[in-house]
């Protein structure tokens, strides 16, 4: 991919983000933060590449450390979001 292609993806994704986030109900803004937290840990992809790559011991350990941190976020973020969302109930279902 050249830079322009990547930039196009980025700019379009910003617009998608803008509209999708405004459509989120204010009642769910806290779960929104925790789930965005979890998904921003997709940075784990970079960490995995670093951890798996040969050639530099320093790079490998930094990668492994980043894998641990991103995993805390991924598991913690999705789990706490699921825990919160499970509490949002309607009148009838109580």
């Amino acid at each position, binding site marked *: 991919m050249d830079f322009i292609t990547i930039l196009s993806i980025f700019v379009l994704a910003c617009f998608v983000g803008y509209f999708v986030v*405004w459509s989120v109900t204010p009642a769910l803004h806290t779960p929104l933060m925790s789930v965005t937290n979890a998904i921003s840990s997709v940075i784990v992809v970079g960490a995995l590449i670093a951890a798996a790559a040969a050639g530099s011991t320093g*790079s490998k350990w930094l990668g492994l450390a980043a894998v641990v941190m991103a995993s805390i976020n991924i598991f913690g973020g999705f789990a706490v979001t699921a825990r919160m969302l499970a509490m949002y109930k309607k009148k009838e279902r109580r």
Partner: protein
Amino acid sequence: MHEVAHAPAWVMLAYLAAGICFILALRGLSSPESSRKGNRFGMFGMVLAVGTTLFYYRPVTGIGGADFMANLDGPLFGEILVAIAIGAVIGVVTARRIAMTAMPQLVAAFHSLVGLAAVCVGAAAYLNPAAFGIAEASGLIHPGSRVEMGLGVAIGAITFSGSVIAFLKLNGNMSGKPIMLPMRHFINLGTLAAILILIGYFVSDESPWVFFTVVGLSFAIGFLLIIPIGGADMPVVVSMLNSYSGWAAAAMGFTLQNSAMIITGALVGSSGAILSYIMCRAMNRNFISVIAGGFGGGDAAAGGAAAASDRPWKRGSAEDAAFLMKQAELVIIVPGYGMAVAQAQHAVREMADQLKHEGVTVKYAIHPVAGRMPGHMNVLLAEANVPYDEVFELEDINAEFARADVAFVIGANDVTNPAAKTDKSSPIYGMPVLDVEKAKTVLFVKRSMGGVGYAGVDNDLFYRDNTMMLLGDAKKMAEEIVKSMG
């Protein structure tokens, strides 16, 4: 343009699919019914992204992976799985144990991890550019990638140190009072300029000192930016750091040419930016003045308290409150963070249940800054089993106060202050407030007449003819009212 190693098409498509799953995860949050499905989309997207990466870089020599994978062996793969497992255990245990009142701290802590992970990935890419496919034939890093890498680690480092300070302030390990350094604007702008200049210089010289000075200065600026911001502005700060963590992921996505990271980064970045905007609007503060800091120190508290004692006000008992509410047709409960501090949510919900049993309509009115982060109060009420369809946002319920027989204010203060609408000299003038004074009777639960809200201003509401002050601990008061109703 970039001459970088290309991943095969199926890998690119898998990352794109993961990105779309993340969009659907946020889309699901448009209503509580679809939100749980949305969260599962998010998890699926993450499994897809991680699974694809692990599969592509799996330890099979010579097949599938690029040539630099040839040395990857089984034990290394095992190490990665152990790292994921360690993270999973810490993450899940924390998520299960955390109290809902502590969500802002948890989110700040999570942000700091994203930031630090971004710095680690950036540093790893700097040390081993070939593994990321961003090295030129000479072994040097591609100049374009250097800029992206520099920005990525800078934003990541700011997110990390800023979130650590936000965590300490929210968690009470550090005073919420703003810490004002002399000449701080000069120092901050100078540091930011230095970071940008060094990233520019990094293009022509990729020496370690340039890279690590950028990292070091960015850690420092994250710290310097957040220490002068007061406790009252923390909801904006947490949202802002949410945004930064997104931009850090996006910058890393540019470096690694990974569409899942770019899409996610853009989503999270916009999300945090919009939430910061909503929080600023709810407090009638402008973003620049929040960032400049110094608000919410609580110095004005003493003055407000002195003024409070000279004006006449009415005191009511739990019995009076119970009687008034039982006679009402519509009761609107206005909860604030004070209710959560007193752990009164469950007692309030019991009170509401009793009222509903008596045929009274009960609604909850939530101000956007009722909690410590966007949507925090909604979560706290949901935890206390308040059905979400009884809970309304400010714009949706403000017109109903005129019809309400009782407005029951518990643990909230500034967000009900009519001075925000009328008194131009008030520090909170212009802030959107709940029109509780329009209700026939206002029941205001407060610990004592002395204290004032976050903004340090006296509340006119206390001295109005239709206001009855219920002095005491929020939880005890709510429980006594329940008893009196029985």
